[in-house]
């Protein structure tokens, strides 16, 4: 069992507990262990990017943090603390009071995240009224319009009366964000919020998330498979592979000095603006492991260039400094070969 990472000595975090803290979280769905001991910590007002291929368990981690596990899914270990309060064992009723007020979530497909037969205003008002019964309907409407402005929706009063199909994808994602932030949650989980959007809208939404992060001091966990998004927007990055965090550290450290070969591979697999035209896109061969039968040792070993016997025999521990940890027997050395030959 690896030792939990002590929180970084950021003066703010010493006084207030991290907005979201997962320690050795384990989640199983049926007989597949999707999340195998994930430890993360996100202080208020900071953004953590959770990066990895699909099937790495990053989305399941987010869902676990929201208590929205699919049927047959259950937390089999570790703890989830939101604002210092343990939530992994809450009953459905207790979860209902936490969801929306303590923690909010934004989803990938804005076209389907809003109820097509309900007005935008009604869906927004519902979120507000849920967690603050004392407001009069006028106050709720005012609060809704205020939220719409915060997510930079032009002409909010008209949009309030319209239906989802009358808005563009980007606009709808802003509504979902407004809903998620309606009760000033401590944490906002964004599960690939921009994957279904075109590039320009993608940039707007991410910038919006950044603004809200600072204006509301909300902690944001940005789940994505595109490491470049993490580089541009996140404060810290955690790379997940086969249900485990294999590298975790501040953006600059992880992006510029990756220690885990998989992180490097992730970055090179993304087309660089300055790479020569028609150049072959480097590829990590092989496929993510079957989560029902994880291999012994480092899960990335079968696809890793530097894999040795130790990699396939023993499970690498999280090591490195408190600030920049990684899980690899042969970490990349400073100034090592950047690109695999």
């Amino acid at each position, binding site marked *: 069992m690896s030792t939990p990472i002590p929180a970084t000595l950021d003066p703010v975090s010493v006084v207030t507990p991290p907005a979201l803290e997962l320690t050795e979280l384990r989640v199983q769905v049926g007989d597949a262990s999707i999340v195998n001991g994930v430890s993360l910590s996100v202080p208020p007002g900071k953004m953590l990017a959770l990066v990895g291929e699909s099937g790495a368990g990053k989305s399941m981690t987010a869902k676990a943090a929201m208590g929205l596990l699919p049927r047959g899914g259950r937390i089999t270990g570790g703890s989830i603390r939101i604002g210092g309060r343990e939530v992994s064992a809450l009953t459905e009723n207790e979860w209902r009071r936490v969801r929306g007020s303590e923690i909010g979530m934004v989803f990938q497909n804005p076209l*389907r*995240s809003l109820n*097509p037969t309900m007005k935008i205003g009604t869906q927004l008002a519902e979120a507000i009224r849920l967690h603050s019964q004392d407001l009069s309907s006028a106050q709720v409407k005012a609060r809704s319009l205020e939220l719409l402005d915060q997510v930079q929706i032009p002409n909010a009063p008209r949009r309030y009366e319209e239906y989802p199909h*009358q*808005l563009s994808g980007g606009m709808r994602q802003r509504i979902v964000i407004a809903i998620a932030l309606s009760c000033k949650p401590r944490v906002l989980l964004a599960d690939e919020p921009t994957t279904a959007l075109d590039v320009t809208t993608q940039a707007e939404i991410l910038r919006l998330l950044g603004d809200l992060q600072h204006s509301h001091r909300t902690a944001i966990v940005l789940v994505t498979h595109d490491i470049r998004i993490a580089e541009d927007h996140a404060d810290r990055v955690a790379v997940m592979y086969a249900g485990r965090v294999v590298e975790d550290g501040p953006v600059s450290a992880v992006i510029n000095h990756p220690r885990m070969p998989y992180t490097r591979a992730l970055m090179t697999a993304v087309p660089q603006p300055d790479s020569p035209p028609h150049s072959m896109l480097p590829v990590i061969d092989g496929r993510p492991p079957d989560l029902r039968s994880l291999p012994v040792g480092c899960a990335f070993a079968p696809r890793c260039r530097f894999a040795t016997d130790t990699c396939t025999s023993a499970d690498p521990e999280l090591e490195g400094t408190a600030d920049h940890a990684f899980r690899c027997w042969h970490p990349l050395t400073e100034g090592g070969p950047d690109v695999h030959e």
Partner: protein
Amino acid sequence: MSNGGGQVHGIFGRLPGRILRLVSVVFGVCLLTFVLINALPGNVATAVLGDQATPEQVAALTAQLGLDEPIPQRFLNWLGGVFQGDLGSSLVNNQPVWDAVAQRIPVTLELVALALLFAIAAAVPAAVLAVRKPGGVLDRVLGGVSFSFLATPSFLLGLVLILVFAIELRWFPVSGWVPFAQDPIGNLETAFLPALTLAATPFAYFSRLLRADMAEQLTREDYVTTARAKGVPRRAILFRHVLRNSIFPMMTMVGLTTSLLVGGSVVVESIFGVPGIGLLLIQSITSRDVPVVLGVVVFIAAAVVIVNLIIDMLYGVVDPRIRHDHADA
């Protein structure tokens, strides 16, 4: 009755097209009925004259009723009459078809409406309970009940209901009908058991459909996850979010079952002695009363087609996506 799909424009834009369709379908029904009745064996005159009929009398009546003219000719005469609102009168007692039918259609329509109401009122909670735990006990029970309703002929169900509710428990009268205008409570008492018998099959269809549709939404639709992420309680999700979207498949099903119910009411009316259109049809068929058979069938077909037309229109009103089609989405 093709559904409201296809190229979408304002709900009233499609009305003329739909009305034309309505008229053509009702015309088709008249043609089919007329051919069906007249081309088949069985002589109206002998049936009407009964045991004292002498051959000359039969011939005289046949001529008087114009039964010896070729079928197309008679159909045109009849159709001519229809346009002037004269459906002809019964051969047996000269009652204008219009009066006979007008007196009974409201009864059958009330019965069908009540049956639909009962079916929907029972199917919604049943489906909601079943879908809370797919594959659970309640889900199987609902499946079992629906299958057993589909497997029981309505006349058997009716007779059993009489035995239980009218004889043992004495809650309801066995037969008879009190017009609503005269005594609403009495009317509901006499209409309860027949409507319940009639509601069995539609209940089975509705609950199966609703359960499947809601289950699919719960697993596949993202707005359900959004609602859960908002902290909306499970019951509210089912009623406020999911049920709202199940209205459309339900409306189509209601359209389909209306014609089934009007047919089914024939049996229920005969058991419970409800003076509806179904029984008039059986009596007029057995006594070969051609004008009445035609009148009844045209009314029923028109009613069924109109119901489906209304449902088509309702699509536009209920479904915002159609109502606000000009959006820039």
